[in-house]
């Protein structure tokens, strides 16, 4: 749905990363971790797709990393300004599968890097609300870019990796005999590539939330394609509609 939202908060929580709270003018029935919003930005032709970091009482929280013209303008938004956005979009993580896994004594790991941690934070909040537990592996480039460490430790077992590769921490855990039943991930391509190789090797089921340059955001224009393996080789799926969450083992990175 299309809604107008009022900026109620915008703070810088790390180098080039802002936490922005948006109060929607309509009730949004259901939002799943892994879904995103498509925000119209002043002076930019195309909307910008941003993962939802959390949602409660009609307030959607997004984390925006300043990487270019559109994201810079989003980071400059002032409280009481209004924005137009489509939300919620995308398939989201399969939280039923996640909850079933944990309730059946299985272990779920959230593995993410940088701004990719935003949708994983929503996952962590969702699981915490059900009084369940996950393990979280947080990767950051350096101290300056680290954020939400306290917020994550609030709800789960945390291994944070500052500098270096968070997938090294994942490998280490696996080698010491801790094997999860399911991994949810989001982050830069090198992280997802490494993680995919690890999951293939250890036969671990995994999902990843991908990002792509988008057009319509609703699945009609076909510009946000991701290469996904299938029985005939591969096809292109729409990150905005068939994703952004895909089976990591099928994603051709």
């Amino acid at each position, binding site marked *: 749905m299309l809604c107008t939202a009022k900026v109620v908060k915008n703070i810088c929580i790390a180098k080039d990363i802002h936490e922005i709270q948006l109060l929607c003018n309509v009730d949004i029935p259901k939002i799943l971790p892994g879904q995103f919003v498509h925000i119209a930005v002043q002076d930019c*032709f195309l909307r910008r797709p941003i993962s939802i970091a959390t949602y409660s009482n009609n307030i959607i929280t997004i984390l925006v990393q300043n990487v270019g013209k559109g994201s810079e303008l989003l980071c400059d938004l002032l409280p009481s300004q209004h924005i137009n956005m489509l939300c919620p979009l995308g398939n989201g993580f399969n939280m039923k599968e996640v909850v079933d896994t944990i309730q059946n004594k299985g272990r779920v790991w959230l593995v993410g890097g940088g701004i990719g941690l935003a949708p994983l934070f929503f996952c962590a909040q969702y699981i915490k609300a059900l009084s369940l537990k996950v393990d979280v592996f947080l990767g950051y480039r350096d101290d300056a870019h680290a954020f939400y460490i306290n917020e994550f430790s609030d709800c789960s077992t945390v291994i944070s990796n500052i500098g270096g590769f968070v997938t090294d921490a994942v490998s280490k855990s696996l080698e010491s005999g801790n094997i999860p039943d399911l991994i949810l991930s989001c982050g830069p391509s090198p992280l997802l590539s490494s993680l995919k190789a690890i999951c293939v090797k250890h036969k671990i089921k995994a999902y990843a939330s991908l990002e792509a340059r988008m057009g319509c955001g609703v699945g009609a224009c076909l510009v946000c394609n991701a290469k996904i393996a299938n029985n005939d080789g591969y096809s292109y799926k729409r990150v905005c509609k068939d994703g952004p969450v895909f089976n990591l083992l099928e994603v051709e990175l």
Partner: protein
Amino acid sequence: MNLQVDLCSVKLKNPLIAASGTFGFGREYDELYDISMWGAISVKGLTLEPRLGNPPHRIAETASGMLNSVGLQNPGVDAFIKNELPWLLSKKIPVIANVAGFSVAEYVKSIQKLSDSDVDMVELNISCPNVKCGGLHFGTEPDQVSEVVEAVRKVCNKPLIVKLSPNVTDIVEIATAAKNAGADAISLINTLTGLSIDARKRKPTLANITGGLSGPAVKPIALRMLWQIASKLDIPLVGMGGINSGEDIIEFILAGASAVMIGTANITDPLAGPRILAELTQFCKDDNIQNIADIVDGLQV
């Protein structure tokens, strides 16, 4: 106030047609609003065989527009007729099958299949490379336009719209070739070829290097070409290129269009269809236009 228009004997309840490429087969936008409000829909370009399309990136933002290089990803004509057409026809709006091809033979085979189907019209996308001619686009050479339109005309029992590429020196010459070869109507413009560069990576943004420019940036060119053709040829015209308001539609109709196609606007505003229809209705009320069809080609020069 009457917004009804007639396009090759097909009645459209209003002049707004959803442009090919931006609207899929209608299902996604129908989740946001009832797409039956459109005068007609031109579906995603179909090819004889299914196509995977280009690798990412397929889109680049430009000033007042965008470049796209999707690569005609589509399920193929057969899958369209079987899986998409029945649902579209249930929406009770005219369906225009947009067809692309890489050889005359391919175009002919696709049109033969669509002639046997229940689509209302066919729109020929000739902005495609002719593999037999070293990849030169069909739509850039009058002789090639004639060849493909004549061949398709023989097997096409539906109204035939030919969609022109603007990447040419003389659009009137191209339009004349299409008309003489048997086109029932002409739609224009398709996208303008453009390049986007990522300065930091020192590479083109798009995987296919160049892409097609669309959006408000192209409107002046679209209007100019439409007007040039309307001034010289007597054939129904469908105008498109950067339309984003009711007033834009009026401009295209004044320039000679019987109907218009709206594409990129859907990408920036998912509710563009209903919004622009409301704006057109209001404009006609304010300007005392009783029948939209009365002002076609009404530009005073």
